[in-house]
């Protein structure tokens, strides 16, 4: 089965400076459209309009945090199969294992290198079993 193209990414983080960094960093990946949201709740509202190929979630956000956002996505058939990556400062091995159990395809630790971030995302995308996702 051929791999689908990564065209649209949604990044969710309550920290505006990090959202801006991610937009700039992913701008280095040609042909990629990047949308951002400031909260899990807002992301859940925007998902039907954005229809991203991949969602990147911060973990600790006020209100609906990253893990809750993922659980609510998985409970909705429209979004259940969208791969999710956590981008978090909470990247100790036990936490990473928990995020993987929740269904995250990968966990990227903060701080990340903005110069490498785009390639990291592409590599994660290429490693996803899209037949199962």
């Amino acid at each position, binding site marked *: 089965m051929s791999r689908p193209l990564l065209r649209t990414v949604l990044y969710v983080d*309550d*920290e505006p*400076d*990090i959202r*801006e*960094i991610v937009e*700039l*960093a992913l*701008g*280095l990946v040609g042909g990629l459209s990047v949308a951002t949201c400031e909260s899990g709740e807002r992301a859940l509202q925007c998902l039907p309009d954005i229809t991203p190929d991949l969602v990147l979630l*911060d973990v*600790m956000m*006020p209100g609906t945090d990253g893990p809750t956002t993922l659980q609510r996505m998985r409970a909705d058939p429209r979004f259940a199969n969208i791969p999710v990556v956590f981008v*978090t*400062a909470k990247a100790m091995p036990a936490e990473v294992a928990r995020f993987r159990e929740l269904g995250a395809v990968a966990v990227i630790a*903060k*701080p*990340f290198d*903005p*110069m490498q971030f785009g390639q990291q995302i592409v590599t994660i995308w290429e490693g996803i079993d899209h037949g199962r996702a």
Partner: protein
Amino acid sequence: MDERDELQQKIADIAGRYIQRTAGELGGLRELIAKVRAGNTAAAKEIEQLAHKIYGSGSMFGFEAVSEQARELELVAKDTADPQMVERLQVRADALEEQVQAAIRARGAQ
């Protein structure tokens, strides 16, 4: 200037905005500590979230010492069973402010 140089420059600009904004948030942190002192336990959770945000973003922009102090503050705010929590929050907030001011001075000196 290629797009990578441009990205580096923009990150440096965002870092400058970030540290100034963080300095502004420290006033709110003092107010939250006052609320904890008055018995508002929910304020400790707000301190934890604010400290976590500074911790995560500080290291992104190369403010390692700021990030480290924010992490210490986050850990203190989590430990709501500690009877000395308010005093420890105060000490950590002072240390964080010191590091934020040092980072601003260092950027000004560049």
